[in-house]
């Protein structure tokens, strides 16, 4: 089965352009990523990063719980 794929891949002319294309795709992907991350809404970011701490409260509750529930007491 694989040998058929293999032969096809070998016969593609100019396959060397593939790595270049993928590199460009991801270069622009990352630039886009940086750009959007920079533009992110601060309040929403805060809400998102509090998700693990908010699990007993509503998702939109920014005032997450403090030490009492999420932390073991010290011996």
């Amino acid at each position: 089965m694989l040998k058929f794929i293999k032969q096809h891949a070998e016969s593609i002319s100019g396959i060397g352009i593939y790595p270049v294309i993928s590199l460009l795709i991801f270069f622009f992907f990352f630039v886009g990523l940086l750009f959007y991350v920079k533009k992110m809404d601060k309040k929403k970011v805060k809400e998102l990063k509090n998700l693990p701490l908010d699990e007993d409260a509503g998702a939109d509750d920014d005032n997450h719980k403090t030490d009492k529930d999420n932390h073991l007491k010290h011996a």
Partner: protein
Amino acid sequence: MQLEKFQYDNRIVRNFAYATILWGVVGMLVGLWAALELVFPKVLNVQPWFNFGRIRPLHTNAVIFAFVGNGIFMGYYYSLQRLLKTRMASDILSRIHFWGWQLIIVAAAITLPLGITTSKEYAELEWPIDIAIAVIWVIFGWNMFATILKRRERHLYVAIWFYIATFVTVAVLHIVNSFELPVTFLKSYSWYAGVQDALVQWWYGHNAVAFFLTTPYLGLMYYFLPKAANRPVFSYKLSIIHFWALIFIYIWAGPHHLLYSALPNWAQSLGIVFSFTLIFPSWGGMINGLLTLRGAWDKVREDVILKFMVVAVTAYGMATFEGPMLSLKTINAISHFTDWTIAHVHVGGLGWNGMLTFGILYWLIPKIFKTELYSRKLANAHFWIATLGILFYAIPMYWAGFTQASMWKQFTESGQLKYPFLETVTYLKPFYATRSFGGALYLVGALLMVYNIYKTVRQGKLVANEDAEAPALEKTYQQHNGEHWHRWLERKPVPFLVATLIVILIGGVIEMVPTFLVKSNVPTIASVKPYTPLELQGRDIYVREGCYTCHSQMIRPFRSETERYGEYSKAGEFVYDHPFQWGSKRTGPDLAREGAGNNRKTNTWHFNHLDDPQAISTGSIMPSYSFLIDNVLDTSTTRAKIRAMQTLGVPYEKGYEDKANRDLAIQASQIAATLHNDSIMVPSNREIIAVIAYLQRLGTDIGKNKIAGTSNK
């Protein structure tokens, strides 16, 4: 808004936690056993099942897939339900996943000591178990996605992205690397050969580290570190960038395991560039982890759970700094094949995976048993013993690595190699002993944890179904102004899965293109011929005994290696090797040209050496293979093996499978005759004859069209 009541399934979390602890102790114990075998080779190599070559894969598989694997699932099932505010979609699937995974582990624990192995590192399990792994993995993924789809929290927290990426990528890796042709019920040949096989294997091997030991654990870090510290992750934005960068770049880095090998140069360079770049996303994760604790370092001083986590994240940082360095050619020339690699992986394994697992266990067990940890003092003792254990393990191994490499490379003033290989082995014994001590310390720490958790469990009671409530998910989503596309992705699990798949496939395909094209990159060597049936059977015994765990078959183009082993290895020499046997560690010498030039020994030498290595090479740490003298070679498989090789494209003449056993008998009796001349009265139908035939064949092919070519030591 109406609150819906539901319950979290804690029983599955507990089961995976117990399995993590059990297999962790087993895996470490086997590791300690293997380590001590290098110190006391005569006593501890209980043949044949507990010989080093058979239990080293047992150790790696147990630690990676049983200890860390169960650790991943423990963390998944706990955090996934809570982050999504729902119970797992199906308790039955959760249970099938749990028991299926444990059965696979048991199957591995039985088959590996029996010598049933593919010899592809961290993928040694044979084809029926490979199929079982694929099935159970799909069940696990199915359950995870069904849970995500019925969630009550719209956004997928960063930990879940790592879980999704892990699921997708491990599936792809496992399937591609497990392409193999079954020969018998428990024996298969890799679909790929030689260079191609090596490239696929290390694409897999490296990404098993990336997507089994790293991404799921980063997911766990993003959940459990904030929980334990009770503060949100340092930067959510950083986590977005570092997630995409990590999964994109990791998948390319495999060829750094094959530097200076017979892999085409341009593929090596590709691997180096991406391996080096990896430092950025890796450190992004480490920084995000450590800075989560900013302003809370006073807590770290007091809280043993945070201590475990801080050491884990620090070890992650060290290992991911070292990794890119090791992939630079100049450093790799020194580190590769030595104990440096062993030190490197154990900083990751003991430090990052081990310590994070312990931290999570200490945090999670009291939670689901509604109690306090039995003893913080004991946990503290565990922390310090484990940390010391890591130091006692890693430092001697780094030292051994440097020493080994420099001894291998040293020449006298007259241009001779200064040290015979054996001397570089005996010199390392004290380092091996110290390393074993470090491993033993680490295990003692883990046993303290077993006791501590046992007492904790005894004093509490499992909350099997934990009550929770959350508002139902609104059917229509109100988009915020200025919302960006990544937030869209965070809400949509399926597009997210597809996006991750595309990202890893791009790297994967580009990585695979060299694999497909490699055929045109491998200059065929006319004199390289398929193995004779006896050599093929001998090779399969070589695979079965895990000889590759200590002996490489890859001579790099350095003067210190060509002087010692002969002409450097050519890609074209391996075209019939299903699977390849290049190895990754030289605890013993390279065997690529064991049958050629000045390396060649007599059949009698091999017989006596396999029977009792220490009698021939004083101070050798190789186990005895005397059982090969008693074992009768199973020739009933020869026909099937030749047929399989023909299917894979090895040019045996048509109908050769019917003549193979006749040729096998002739060659075997020739070898037996030379042994008889030296008064060794062994019948020609024994396994040792086949192994000798294989060893005598190694590296001889290219000598045939060269007159001298090699000067060996």
